[in-house]
């Protein structure tokens, strides 16, 4: 059973600076395999009796878990890791206690996670809270904690560059920027100038532990159950992936192909108001191809190098460069009505260096712009800044104020808590237009067309959760193996993904058995959220989505109706075997899934 695993989990307590090498995680591996499912199970075990702990306190465990297929060298399943903890960002409408938040799980590519596996480590489990800034150093399996004071305050790129100059260019650095240090709730953890554990505020959790970053190098070959099958399948998959049409497009344009591809179909313009980008000629995919991108970049072992780096060639911000834009970066581009690449780059670079999640930052800035336009926020409220659509300079300053003045001035403090929270403080008019579900900003698509995955996601508005019960369970096969979304979907599919996990771990599970693991994982997430007071009312949208049909583009006139949505939600809960009115998991369902130890906790759900 141990194939694919080193049987080595590193438990780090930042308070006492103790480092312990254990096998504690192996007891769950047979049942939950790894990645997101393993992390969620361990989060539940750690917090089931104290679901109300402060996510920015010492008790919240921050777990970094490379997927089961990470580091073995299989194309696209080679490089991703999962970060699991309790989220500091998401919020219910009716809190169950002082600190009511959902689970947090976030996936990140790049090269760090493969290196963590090469270092002989299955996962990191970090608790506690240091008194001064620290950095965790992992040298091929030997873990130490060093002083990080000199790195504190650096942006994410300075941090990685300094580490590489000090330790050597083969070192990888995963770290937070000033946003994470100052505990902005939607901070992210970055490596390699653009690969991030972006969502649900994991960067703030890392910052709360006074942990600037984790630096790592490793070179050991990952143990694998069936090497023959691996070599046979690898060659086959590599050729399939090189030939797949969608992946050919990804290779050339990245997800940036969707910036023009989805324009006028399912895309956000002006804070999720329109779908047709008026500046597609200057910031659309052809413009990026002709006059912006300079190179491709890949995660470890992947033949679909969807990362693009680009340089702004003209205008006010000429010479600025960044990783992107990806499809989701559109929230800082067309979402804020940017009309040139320089302005867009200015904001993407801000998010990357300061360590903001682009989507949540885009949601916050979009809300700020729309509130400014409607007169809810005045220039005098925000130190004289003009929060106009497309004004990258002023929005950049506003975002920097969110980091630096969040404790001084109330309004920046609100915006540092997320779009939904800020709107609730700004008043009922702002609450109607904040683009979020559970205080988590959703992706650059229209909620009218993506309602299921945005609303039902157990981590707040999210496009990668899955639109149906089956898709959600299949996505967990992806998340537990460390597979990347698009390449897996467009080449080997869910059954192929499951097959890869199986031959690496030396297990023989059917697809149905994998889906069963997925269902268990979702039920644990749901139970955790219910204990924190997340009800059916939280699986819902703001008024703007119901009031305004999509005004333009191919889907013009598409509406969301409250009664239809309530019926749809009930149908989904029923399909999941949950209480159709409240969304609570039922005793019968938990029994069916073999989660009998969770049944006593049903009585503790506050509704």
């Amino acid at each position, binding site marked *: 059973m141990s194939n694919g695993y080193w049987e080595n989990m590193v438990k780090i307590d930042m308070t006492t600076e103790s480092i312990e090498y254990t096998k504690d995680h192996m007891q769950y591996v047979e049942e939950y395999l790894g990645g997101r499912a393993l992390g969620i199970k361990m989060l539940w075990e750690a917090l089931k009796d104290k679901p109300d702990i402060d996510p920015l306190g010492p008790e919240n465990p921050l777990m970094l878990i490379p997927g089961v297929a990470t*580091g*073995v*060298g299989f*194309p696209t399943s080679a490089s991703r890791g999962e970060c699991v903890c309790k989220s500091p960002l998401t919020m219910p409408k009716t809190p169950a206690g002082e600190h009511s938040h959902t689970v947090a799980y976030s996936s990140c590519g790049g*090269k760090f996670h493969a290196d963590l596996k*090469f270092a002989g480590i299955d996962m990191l489990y970090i608790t506690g809270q240091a008194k001064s800034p620290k950095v965790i150093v992992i040298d*091929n399996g030997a873990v130490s904690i060093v002083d990080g004071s000199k790195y504190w305050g650096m942006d994410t*790129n*300075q941090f*990685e*560059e300094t580490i*590489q*100059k000090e330790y050597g*260019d*083969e070192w*990888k*650095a995963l770290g937070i920027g000033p946003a994470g240090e100052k505990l902005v709730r939607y901070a992210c953890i970055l490596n*390699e*100038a*653009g690969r991030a554990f972006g969502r649900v505020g994991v960067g703030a959790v890392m910052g709360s532990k006074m942990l600037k970053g984790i630096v790592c190098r*490793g*070179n*050991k*070959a*990952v143990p*694998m159950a069936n*090497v023959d099958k691996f*070599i046979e399948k*690898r060659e086959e998959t*590599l050729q399939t992936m*090189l030939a797949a049409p969608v992946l050919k497009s990804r290779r*050339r344009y990245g997800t940036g192909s969707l910036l023009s591809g989805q324009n006028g179909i399912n895309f956000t313009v002006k804070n999720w108001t329109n779908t047709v980008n008026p500046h597609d000629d200057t910031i659309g995919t052809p413009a990026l*191809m*002709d006059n*912006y*991108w*300079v*190179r*491709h*970049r*890949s*995660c*470890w*072992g*992947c*033949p679909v*190098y969807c990362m693009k*780096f680009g*340089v*702004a*060639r003209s205008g006010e911000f*000429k*010479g600025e*460069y*960044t*990783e992107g834009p990806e499809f989701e970066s559109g929230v800082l581009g067309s979402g804020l009505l940017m009309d040139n690449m320089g302005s867009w780059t200015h904001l993407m*670079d801000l998010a*990357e*260096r300061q360590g903001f999640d682009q989507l949540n930052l885009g949601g916050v800035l979009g809300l700020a712009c729309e509130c400014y336009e409607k007169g809810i926020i005045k220039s005098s409220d925000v130190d004289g800044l003009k929060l106009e659509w497309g004004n990258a300079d002023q929005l950049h300053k506003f975002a920097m104020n969110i980091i630096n003045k969040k404790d001084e001035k109330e309004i920046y403090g609100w915006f540092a808590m997320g779009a939904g929270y800020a709107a609730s403080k700004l008043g009922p008019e702002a609450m109607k237009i904040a683009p979020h579900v559970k205080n988590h900003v959703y992706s650059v698509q229209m909620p009218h067309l993506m309602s299921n995955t945005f609303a039902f996601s157990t981590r707040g508005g999210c496009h990668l959760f899955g639109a149906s019960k089956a898709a959600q369970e299949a996505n967990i096969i992806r998340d537990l193996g460390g597979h990347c979304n698009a390449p897996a979907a467009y080449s080997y599919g869910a059954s192929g993904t499951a097959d890869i996990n199986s031959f690496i771990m030396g297990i023989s599970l059917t697809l149905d058995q994998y889906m069963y693991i997925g269902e268990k994982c979702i039920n644990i997430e749901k139970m955790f959220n219910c204990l924190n007071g997340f009800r059916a009312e939280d699986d819902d949208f703001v008024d703007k989505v119901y009031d305004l049909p999509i005004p333009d583009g191919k889907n013009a006139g598409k509406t969301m109706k409250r009664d239809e949505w309530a019926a749809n939600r009930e149908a989904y809960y029923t399909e999941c075997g949950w209480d159709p009115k409240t969304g609570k998991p039922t005793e019968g369902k938990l029994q069916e899934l073999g989660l009998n130890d969770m049944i006593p906790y049903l009585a503790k759900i506050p509704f």
Partner: protein
Amino acid sequence: MKNLDTMLKHVKYAELSRRTFLKGALAAGGALALAGCNNESTVKTVTVTETKTVTVTEPTVPTEDAIEPIIKVPSYILADYASCVGCAICSIECSLKHYGIADMERTNIKVYGVNVNGGMVDIPILCMKCNDTPCMAVCPPKVNAISIHPTNGAILIDHDKCTVCGLCVEACAEQRTGCLSLSNDGNEVVGMCDLCDGNPACVTYCPENVLQLLAKVNPVINHARKPRSIAEDVYNFLYAVK
């Protein structure tokens, strides 16, 4: 210059003419791999297709270091740093071919992802088959474990003879890229490229044709550069606005 022309012939022109943003990266980046070796260089225009020309920097070969190539067949793997995407498929294929598993400890080609102020640059580093072979020069005569393959020009290490004294590793680290290293257990010198008997897996599998098998070009000085030093040049080439 003959070698530059040979190298440019390997570049996929069809791709180059269709994909405008790769135009500079492929052609001039390839030149950069060569031009980086010395400060004296001349600029010339190379005809890429019938309708397009690009300007590339052509290196002048340093006469002092010019040593007559011993091997006349293609025996040198040239990396076009500016178009390397950093996927490390070369590393994986290399170790799969030699050891049957993705083993980043013993693989003969390593890809360094270098962060230069947020502009990521990927630098593949492998044995440069140096004409003056500092590794061979320091190998004690009684041991004599390092030799040059008589036909394909690869520098080979005989693990039966090798005493793992580490002198070649030191020499490579001090004078060259530092592609050689000791294995984790300290019992083996790893990182010496054997050119896969003339058909290198890294070149075959590179999805962007970054690696090319060429005749040796006397780039002795270039071989002494470390990943970050090369990366900074590539960074200036890619991210600077003209």
